[in-house]
């Protein structure tokens, strides 16, 4: 076991997969010489050379389209989109092409590719360096979407994503890169896609979260414990395929659930979690399922006051959880 940050865990994950399998390569803007604008690929260019760490032109559709073609011809691309906010030009290639290759050929083709994208706010990134995209892509059948919140999960899920025969959107919360540190198991540590994780056991209510909000929920749980409220924290880790049984289990256990995400409220992932609970655990509910989310405004602004107003925080989570506990 060693303590690492999220960014170190991601870099190690990529390095180990590239060493293990020659068909794995990285393509994206500034990933080569520069080592990535967040240094996620630092050192890989020197180690693996220009055929396996490729500085692409400034063209997102190109990055994804080329990755698709390479995956068709036996490679396992890790395509980096510099910020999740810039993924829109590649929508056509992701949604109409990557997500449909397997289905539209009745299984003849499959694309073992990973699309990595830094997401989320709290970094003074303003409207175009802070967005959440998990609901948009989680909605598309044919894609898998993961959003780790800890270094161990980041490394383990990256390995799983690379080895998965389907296209995986790997979302790394940029605020967690250096903020979140944790133990990472030695050796070939793989975390299965589709399995949520109880990060803290509790009995009075359940907090369901992912990404940066996982860390905030764990802090909130500490504060709640001091006030006599025992909060269980479920880390989704995978958005799609979502771990339905874990969600239902925690809902049944406590009867009170609060789902937390930064993303806009309308049709965000909380809506899906709430629907799952309604369908499968209605009889065990002691209160309506609640959610704490970003507001329905286009994105979080640059000014600190506005950014703070947008983002859920530990205090906001504690307050909402206490409301739920008191219902």
């Amino acid at each position, binding site marked *: 076991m060693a303590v690492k940050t999220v960014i170190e865990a991601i870099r190690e994950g990529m390095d180990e997969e590239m060493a293990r399998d020659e068909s794995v390569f990285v393509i994206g803007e500034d990933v080569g010489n520069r080592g990535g604008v967040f240094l996620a690929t630092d050192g890989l260019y020197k180690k693996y050379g220009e055929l396996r760490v490729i500085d692409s032109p400034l063209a997102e*559709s190109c990055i994804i*389209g*080329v990755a698709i*073609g*390479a995956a068709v011809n*036996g*490679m396992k691309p890790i395509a980096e989109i510099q910020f999740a906010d810039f993924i829109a030009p590649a929508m056509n290639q992701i949604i109409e092409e990557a997500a449909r290759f397997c289905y*539209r050929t009745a299984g*003849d083709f499959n694309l073992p590719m990973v699309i990595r994208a830094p997401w989320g706010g709290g970094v003074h990134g303003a409207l175009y360096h802070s967005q959440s995209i998990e609901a948009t892509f989680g909605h598309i059948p044919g894609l898998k979407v993961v959003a780790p919140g800890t270094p161990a999960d980041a490394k383990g899920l990256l390995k799983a994503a690379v080895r998965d025969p389907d296209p995986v959107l790997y979302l790394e919360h940029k605020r967690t890169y250096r903020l979140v540190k944790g133990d990472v198991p030695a050796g070939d540590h793989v975390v299965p896609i589709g399995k949520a994780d109880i990060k803290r056991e509790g009995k009075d209510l359940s907090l369901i979260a992912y990404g940066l909000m996982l860390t905030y929920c764990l802090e909130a749980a500490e504060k709640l414990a001091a006030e006599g409220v025992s909060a269980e924290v479920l880390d989704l880790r995978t958005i799609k395929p979502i771990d339905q049984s874990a969600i239902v289990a925690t809902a049944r256990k406590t009867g009170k659930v609060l789902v937390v995400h930064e993303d806009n409220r309308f049709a965000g992932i909380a809506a899906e979690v709430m629907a799952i609970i309604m369908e499968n655990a209605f009889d065990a509910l002691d209160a309506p399922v609640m959610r704490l989310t970003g507001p329905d405004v286009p994105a979080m602004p640059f000014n600190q006051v506005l950014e703070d107003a947008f983002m859920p925080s530990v205090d906001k989570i504690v307050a909402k959880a206490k409301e739920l506990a008191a219902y």
Partner: protein
Amino acid sequence: MALKAAQIEAKGGPSRHQSLGLSDEQALKMYEVMRLARAVDERMWLINRQGRAPFVISCQGQEGAQVGTAAALRPGYDWVAPYYRDAGVVLWFGMTARDQMLSFFARREDPNSGGRQMPGHFGSRRLHIVTGGSPVATQLLHAAGVALASKQRKEDAVTNVYFGEGSASQGDTHEAMNFAGVHKLAVVFICENNGYAISVPQSRQMAIANLADRAAGYGFPGVVVDGNDVLACYEVARQAVERARRGEGPTLIEVKTYRFTAHSSDDDDKRYRKAEEVAIWRQKDPIHRYAGYLRDAGTLTDQREDEITDRVTVQVDDATEYAEQAPDPTPDDLTTFVYKQEIPG
């Protein structure tokens, strides 16, 4: 370094195909595949007009460009990324009349998609035909990716990617040519310029007369060729393929051709073009022209022509009957293969 577009003049005279390195057998095979593509297509229109299948999208008129350029590749080793009109390409690369008809009737056994996609959405991993969807021009980036992988693995496979002149307006076309040019990839970009993107004529699609002129902007050669002269297409394609195999990078080939039918069975081309124009191009039918040349060269005799006609007819009739009787997918088939590896919830 500025590279100029070139134009190939049709050369006449016997043994032209031999001087291009084609045996009589190969030359006749190309002719037969063109005939087969045409015959399958004509049968599909008939069945559609009887109301028995909902959709046809044709290759008629463009068989010469398709077979000519595809014949420069090694099926099974090289790759093709066709667009929806490329029946000639996929038949050359190993698809059969039955495959075409199974796709036309959307049967469960359809090798392209199990009946999930409309006709013309070709795809076969085994045959190295990249699967295509309906959004146009996405395949150019895929072809660049296939070629990138060949380069990464130090293989000399070449990828032909096909598209209409309308698709050339999409951003993906620019991005793909740019990327392929930067990395000197073994891609041959083949634009089948038939003058219309459904009803929009070339003059509304681009400000230039020859799409091939754009190649210079990406750092590789562009060539214009008579798309209805199958041997001219073969010659140009072969040069481009050899260039690519030597690691010298892409070529943009613009074949000037024409589509005899409307865009699809849902289109009425009388609304945007005159019958006279179609008639003029029909006189340049690539199949008739090639037949004329082969006869002059003594390679195509009456007997051989009859044999080819018989083989084609038998294949089309067999394919029609087989596909008509073949079972449809069942409702249970709807939810399979969303993923290669399902993860139970």
